[in-house]
């Protein structure tokens, strides 16, 4: 018995060692990025030491102010794009999910199947006509190609996720709300929304991070540097860094992922909840 117990302990210790090493391997690149922004360029490509030998303090300042515009503008632009997209996505997806989850109407099954199948529709096959369409609307070089589709619930992932949550709420709630004089909309706002708050929260942070990190769409739709998002600005810095100001680029990259990392750590449980209930992607 005690022998068996001993074996179990050894096994547990080995498992922890493995998990910890893997964890270090996963996180080390990010830690390295942070510390390397304080290194000189020679030191970035050189010794293995994690901490800089000579701390360079101004790489953040110089990186921020490099180029035609400062990163203040790029951060502001990114927020101007991301925040409306998140808000519109939440509102539209909630309405649509409520419609699918709580009412019976003609063609509901077919429409729901279509909605689910658009989850699998490759973006690559619709991107060119979308570009042509937005060009005709005069939306290029603005954030409308991002915001307007989110008003029209063009992110089926979130509809699906919220439908799952709505289905978890007992129908008796709706009935008693009706008896208390609520119509369908006030039932949604007063009864359902408070109950699905965690789901709304996960949807918000997912959409925030995905939109924040988006590169392909920004690359296509935005072409003046004045409107650049952080993704585009970083890529531009990388192209123009002929003088090899590597620490500045790493410093700006660190700042670029900072909002996502902070949100991730503060709202950790919502991520896991969101992903586990829909079981889709991330």
């Amino acid at each position, binding site marked *: 018995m005690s022998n068996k117990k001993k074996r179990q302990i050894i096994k547990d210790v080995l498992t922890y060692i493995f998990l910890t090493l893997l964890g270090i391997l996963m996180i080390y690149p*990010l830690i390295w990025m942070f510390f*390397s922004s304080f290194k000189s360029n020679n030191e970035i490509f050189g010794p293995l030491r994690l901490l800089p030998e000579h701390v360079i303090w101004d790489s953040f300042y110089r990186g921020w102010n490099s180029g035609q515009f400062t990163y203040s503008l790029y951060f502001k632009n990114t927020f101007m794009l991301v925040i409306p997209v998140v808000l519109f996505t939440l509102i539209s997806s909630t309405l649509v999910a409520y419609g699918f989850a709580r*009412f019976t109407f003609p063609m509901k099954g077919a429409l729901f199947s279509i909605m689910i199948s658009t989850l699998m529709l490759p973006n690559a096959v619709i991107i060119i006509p*979308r570009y042509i369409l937005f060009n005709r609307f005069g939306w290029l070089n603005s954030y409308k190609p991002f915001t307007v589709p989110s008003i029209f619930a063009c992110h089926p992932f979130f509809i699906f996720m919220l439908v799952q949550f709505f289905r978890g709420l007992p129908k008796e709630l709706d009935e008693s709300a009706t008896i208390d004089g609520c119509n369908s909309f006030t039932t949604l706002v007063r009864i359902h929304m408070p109950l699905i708050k965690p789901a709304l929260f996960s949807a918000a942070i997912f959409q925030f991070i995905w939109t924040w990190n988006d*590169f392909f769409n920004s690359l296509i739709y935005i072409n003046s540097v004045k409107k650049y998002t952080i993704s585009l600005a970083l890529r531009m810095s990388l192209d123009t860094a002929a003088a090899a100001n590597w620490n500045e680029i790493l410093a700006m990259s660190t700042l670029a992922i900072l909002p996502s990392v902070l949100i991730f750590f503060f709202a950790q449980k919502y991520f896991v909840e969101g992903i*586990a209930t829909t079981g889709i992607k991330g």
Partner: protein
Amino acid sequence: MKGHVNSKKKKRQYIGLLYILPWILGFLIFQLYPFISSFIYSFTNYNMTSNTEFIGLKNYIDIFTKDSQFYNSLKVTIFYVFMAVPMKLIFALIIAMILNIKLKYVNFYRTIYYLPSILGGSVAVAVLWRFLFADSGLVNEILSFFGIPKIGWLSNPKIALFTISLLTVWQFGSSMVIFLAGLKQIPKELYEAATVDGVSKAGMFFTITLPLLTPIILFNLIMQMIIAFQEFTGSFVITNGGPMKSTYLYAMKLYDEGFLFMKMGYASALSWVLFTVILVCTALIFKSSEYWTYYEDGGQY
């Protein structure tokens, strides 16, 4: 009585349509219309400057007979998908299995492993990858510390695509969380019964865990495959398709033709070829899944 049942059945709540109206409009304008028109554009020489003419199958014929980069990028992409997706899923499954053992601090490890997958698609991480795997970057420095000669992670055409795939595998966390949720669903009684019957741990994995997890594996496989076929940011920022076009993924080819050279008709045809490839792969996986997925309700899913 019968009338009552009927009226209940036919109870239509048209207000539901009002709630889903935003999606219906969004679907028609931003999804269905572009979907159909990209098919139509693929038979034209649309390029935003000169007059558009129908040119029949010319785009498709050119793709298959004249465009050598097409075959290269298709080959590169298929290699990438077949390398990155299985690696990512197998890794995610193994780690999920380990975390599913009753251990303390599981949540801590889960958080750490999950973090890269929320940052994975960003330019910042692609920039980081470029630094880490540069010829004199961190990875090679670590290797030379152990006396291993430097590897051209991004400069060797035979290896560069693998390095890009590593960025994908690094983001295994989201798949892991899904697997972990699936593993929690498996009833404990099954394992208890198997223990009574004297089944080994390995036996349990192959007769209980894996079969019950197959629907989730199938779903993950398909979603990850569709995403991987369209991978863009990694190769665009890290290697810009090089060296010697060895990481010139299909999405980059599509971007170059459509948005750099503005040959939008041609690019639409390219996108439909990609769509067909994805469709065929999805269909094959679905078809094959009849033999390897297990549904408790006998497939009435």
